[in-house]
Structure formats: C-alpha cells, structure tokens
C-alpha cells in the first residue's frame, strides 16, 4: 500500500560502492576547504565523518548530493558521475537521497505535516489523503513527535525541528541518507534516540548512511567506519577500534576532547584574564 509513494526510478545496481569521491578539491576563494580527498561509501553501511567545527564536514557531505560542485575531482553515485550533471538530471537522482541539514532547514511557511509531505507532493500525485496522513503519523511517531502535525517550525525547539527534518528526509524512503550533525544540540537522551533510529533505518531497510558529527559517543555507537578530516585531508579511516588506537596525535586529541599544547601555550602566554579585559576606566 505504501509502495506507491516510494521511489520507482530504476537505476542499475552495482558493486559495493554506493558513493565514490575521487580526488575532490574544493576552494572558496583562496580558502582550500577540501584538498584532494578520495573515499568510498559502502552500500548498506554507516560511514561517520568526524572533525572539528569548520573543517569542511558540511562542505564534504553537500558534495555527495551535488549541492556543491568541486573545483576538481569527481563524485559518483552508483558508478554514475554526478558532479557534472545539470540540475534537471540531478533532481531525478536526488530522490534517492535523504538529507538532514544541520539546522533542520524546515520551511517556515509550512506546518509540520506540510513539511513532511513536501517531497511526496513534488514527485507523486496524492490521491488518497487518509493514506498520506497515516504515513505522516508513522514517520512522526518514529521520531517521537506524533501529535505535532499542525505546529509551525517557529513553535518547535531546535531539537524538535531537527527531528521533524529527519522525518521529512525519510519521507520518500531513500536508499541513502546523509545526516549533517544529527545529534548536535539535542539532550543526551534524545541524541541516543536519534542514534537508535539511524541504526534501525540502516538495519531494517538496508539504508546506506553517512553521518557528519563531532559527537564521539554517537560516532562509536553507529559507525561501521569512521573517517577523520583535518586541514582538508583525511588523516584517519577505519572502524571504531582503529580510531580509538590511532597513533596520530591530532586524532587522539580530538576523540578525547583535549586541547592541543599550542592552544594551551597561547592561553598561558596572554597572562591573567583581568589583563585581557576592558576595565571601566578604559572608557573614561
């Protein structure tokens, strides 16, 4: 019954590489954000990309769905090159994706129900509204928000928005879901619910998953493979144990949440806090 609203665009299925990035470089002006990166995202697996804020995680994940185009390098979806396609061709391919944006990116002018059925309406003609209502209810129940159908995004908390956005991302039952910091800004319990949900989607539906995060608890819990980005390069790649025992000092600092010696030195050098503060007499 629900099959009707699912993807029916057939594409040749193929080897294990669901997504492949080859020698990708991205610059904004002179700022090189991604520097010659290559990686393969395996079908049915969960790949987690970690790295400090501003290291280019969002930029990387947006290249996987061709929302951004590389300066050089290639991106393949199921062995088909997508980084050079035009938007019309991409629109068909993108229906196979779900994308959870960092801030949710819900449409302010639409309520929760309308937000969730947006992708359905764009790609199918809705004939049976009762069925769609049930679908919305089911998707909302999955993220623990059944009953919020008529709310507008402005009246939801940040975490609730993110969960509605997740419900919207899985509305078309995508084969691949990209999550941009799904647990950031959620309380630990909610964060764990999202982790469980990501695992459930991957286990039950065989969804290929890419998660970008700096939440190591979440990364260890859901990852089949963890990739660490630093200065535009991949400096570590492997399963959770491999990362835990990785010899690279930057990886160790990041996963343990330690400040580097250089940063500490700056703090020590700048003297006492009061010296760095403005005092009322400075303004007289």
């Amino acid at each position: 019954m629900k099959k009707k609203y699912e993807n029916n665009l057939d594409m040749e299925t193929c080897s294990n590489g669901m997504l492949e990035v080859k020698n990708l470089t991205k610059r904004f002006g002179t700022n090189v954000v991604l520097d010659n990166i290559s990686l393969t995202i395996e079908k049915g697996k969960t790949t987690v990309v970690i790295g400090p804020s501003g290291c280019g995680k969002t930029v990387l994940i947006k290249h996987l769905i061709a929302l951004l185009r590389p300066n050089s390098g290639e991106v393949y979806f199921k062995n088909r090159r997508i980084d050079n396609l035009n938007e019309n061709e991409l629109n068909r391919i993108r229906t196979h994706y779900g994308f959870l944006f960092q801030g949710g990116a819900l449409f302010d002018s639409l309520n929760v129900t309308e937000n969730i059925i947006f992708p359905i309406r764009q790609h199918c003609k809705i004939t049976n509204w009762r069925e769609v209502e049930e679908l919305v209810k089911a998707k909302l129940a999955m993220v623990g928000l059944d009953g919020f159908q008529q709310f507008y995004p402005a009246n939801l908390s940040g975490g609730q928005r993110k969960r509605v956005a997740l419900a919207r991302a899985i509305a078309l039952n995508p084969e691949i879901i990209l999550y941009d910091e799904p647990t950031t800004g959620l309380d630990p319990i909610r964060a764990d619910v999202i982790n469980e949900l990501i695992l459930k989607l991957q286990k039950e539906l065989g969804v290929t998953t890419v998660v970008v995060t700096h939440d190591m608890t979440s990364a260890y819990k859901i990852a089949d493979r963890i990739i660490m980005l630093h200065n535009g390069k991949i400096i570590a790649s492997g399963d959770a144990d491999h990362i835990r025992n990785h010899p690279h000092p930057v990886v160790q600092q990041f996963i343990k949440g330690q400040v580097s010696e250089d940063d500490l030195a700056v703090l020590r050098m700048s003297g006492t806090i009061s010296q760095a503060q403005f005092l009322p007499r400075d303004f007289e």
Partner: protein
Amino acid sequence: MIGIVGAKTISGVSNMGQFARFVWQSMIASLRSCASSRTYPLIWTQMNIIGVRSVPVVMITGAFVGMTLAVQAYDQLAGMGLEEHLGILINISVVKELGPVLAAVMLAGRVGGALTAELGTMNVTEQIDAIRSMGTDPIRYLVVPRFLACLLLTPVLIIYADLMGIIGGHFVSVIQLGINSRAYWNFSANGVELWDISIGVIKGFFFGAAIAVISCYKGFTCKEGAQGVGRACTEAFVASLISILALNFALAVIFKAIYNTFWQLKSLV
C-alpha cells in the same frame, strides 16, 4: 590599485553573467509552469500576498499624485487663463508617467523588499538547498510563482493608481479650485488617447518583471547572517529602482518611435 579595479570588474562581469543566467532560467521555468496545473495554487497564493495587499498603498500613492499635480499646475495655467486645460495635463501625466512609475516604486519597496527578505532568509537557513536536496527546482517552486504574480498584477495595480490619480486630480480641480467639471472632462477626453493609457499599462509588465527578477536574484545570492539579508534587501531596492527608471526611459524612446510610425498612420485611415 589596478589589481583592485581589475578584480572588481571581473566580479562585476561574472555577476552580470550569473544574473542573466538566472533571468533566463526563470523565464524558461515560467513558460513551462504555465502548462502545469501544479503551480497554479502557488501562483494564486503569491497573487494574494503580492497583489491584493498592495492595493491600498498603490491607491493612496495614485490619489496623492493626482491631487498634488492639480495644486501645483493650477497657478501656472490660471496665469495664462488656461485653467480648464488642467484635466488634460493631470491625466496625461498620471496615466503615462507618474502613475506607472510611482506605483512601481512603491511595489519595489513593498513587494521587492519582502521577496528578497523571504528568499534571503530561506537561503541562509539552507531551505533553498533543502528544496534542491529533495529533487525539486527552487526556481520553479519559489521564483516562478512570484515572478508570474508580479508580472500579471503590476499592470492591474497601475490601473488602480491611474484611477485614483484621475479621481484625486478631479477632486482638487473641481471641488477645491472650482473649475467647471464638464470643461475639465471634455479637454481630458480630447487630450488623452487610448494609446497613452496602454503605454502606462504595458510599462507595468516590464516593471513587474524587473522587480520580481531582481528581488528574487538578490534573495538567492544573499550572504550569510542577518546583516547579509538586510544588505540584500537594500541592494535589491536600489537596483529595482534604477532599473525602473532606466526601463521607463528606454520604453519612452521605443514607444515614441512606434507611435510616430504606426499610430498616426492609423488615425489617418
């Protein structure tokens, strides 16, 4: 120094190219959408927001223009004993120039600002990316309904402005300044041709299209942050205003040429 000028020139040219591409895509998408009933509800919503709610502003603008013209022009004409020609002067000015231009300027402020702010906010909160990520063309979903609503409704709003300008001018001339009503209308009817009114209305299509395209483009290319949105709105307003005035001049030249060749021939026949 030369480097800076060079870089500015390059970025200016590439921005122009980007804008031209945006306009082209919007036109194509608009033509396509006319055939698909799915966009009709969206267009309808935008028509309400853009058109219906602008009616009071535009009518007030028109009325004041007409009334002010009457007050200002009366002394000069009365000095020459031509006060009964006041009607033709007011009505021609309102219908041909002031009604369309000032209505468009008000719309650039009221509608253009709102469009840029809305789309700019959607851009910086990744809502436009979200539309793309779900396999929908944001130009088709966001720009086309707004573009078509502006294109179709600006001429209508100009007619409102014209009407109110004519009524305002008549009100001041006849009731305030005591000009004979019949003479006022007779001179007006002889002086104002259908051609003059059509010019004003045709201008409306161009002004509406310019306002919509510029405002949407500025929203789509808006920089991050609340400051970015504010800046985009200001830039959109200034750009709309200048293009309205420039278009008005260009159209005046073109229409004059057309008038001289065709309309006079027709009246000879």
